[in-house]
């Protein structure tokens, strides 16, 4: 199985888990995947899904998306320094 297919399969599986599992387990899985994959842009999509499904604060509706972006940028920066 080639890499894009594996990544797609993991995306679908993660989407199902994000919907079914408690939020803290979903976040743990997303953190692991973000660290494991070289550029895990899908984490932004899952932050977007969290906001869309459960968020209601009209003062700041995009907390999940912003946190996912911040975390992804931090991981990218740290990876350049420690060569994972």
């Amino acid at each position, binding site marked *: 199985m080639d890499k894009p297919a594996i990544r797609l399969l993991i995306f679908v599986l993660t989407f199902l888990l994000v919907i*079914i599992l408690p939020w803290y387990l979903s976040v743990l899985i997303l953190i692991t995947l973000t660290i494991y994959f070289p550029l895990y842009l899908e984490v932004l*999509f899952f932050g977007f899904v969290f906001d869309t*499904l*459960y*968020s209601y604060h009209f003062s700041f509706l995009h907390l999940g998306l912003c946190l996912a972006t911040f975390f992804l940028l931090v991981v990218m920066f740290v990876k350049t320094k420690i060569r994972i």
Partner: protein
Amino acid sequence: MKMSYLLKSKPKHEYRAKILSVIILFISLYILQFLFPSFTKNIIYSVSRPVWAVENKIPNPFSKFVGFFKSQNNLINQNLSLEDELSSLKLKEIDYDLLYKENQDLKNELGRGKSNNRILSRVISGPPNSPYDTFIIDIGGSDVSVGDKVYISDNVIVGVIQNVTFKNSLVELFSTGGKKTQSILSRTGASYILIGRGGSNFELVVPKDTDVIWGDVFVYPGLSSSVIGIVSYVDTTSQSSFKTVYIKIPGNIFSSKNFFVENQ
């Protein structure tokens, strides 16, 4: 003469390209969510609904896990105490039914009878799946509207509807962290503002000599007097001139499968 050449260094723009891709995707999703919130909600709910339907049909395999490790003696004692509690609750239920009927008769005589416009809805997702104190229920469209009150039983109110899509609605609990809710202490009639702390809990900070005690019932303002919460703990310290009252929604709201929505 042998020439030595410096190795070509890694192109620096590769890192910039990654940062740019992250920023572009972030802006795209942000704009999509900002400009089309209902559309995105409908799409995500439509995709999630079959998954929730399957999840709700499958029994929780871990529900009996904790009980497996309890000793037989503990289970027997627990069973006996639950039987006693059940017997006393059955007696209280009889008293409640009589008082409820008397209350309804009095209200009808005064022309303020209770209108039965509540809709039963099923909870399809909520905490701990949701990181907020929100639930998703299976009614939407024209059946409900934003601001409709939500109950878990006849007299226990838990929140309001905040968002409505075609087939689903988002319920926000009054106990959401930071949310302020007007309420009345049923024993004294005094009005207080409860502050949500999340997880079906409220907090109230009052002067130390305020008449609020353990077991007091807070009700939602209005004729129907729906219960918002019951005082579960009062924290007083000798140094402070205030006390913190902790209030909890009665029952276990997070294991509730059904909500009742009252149309305004």
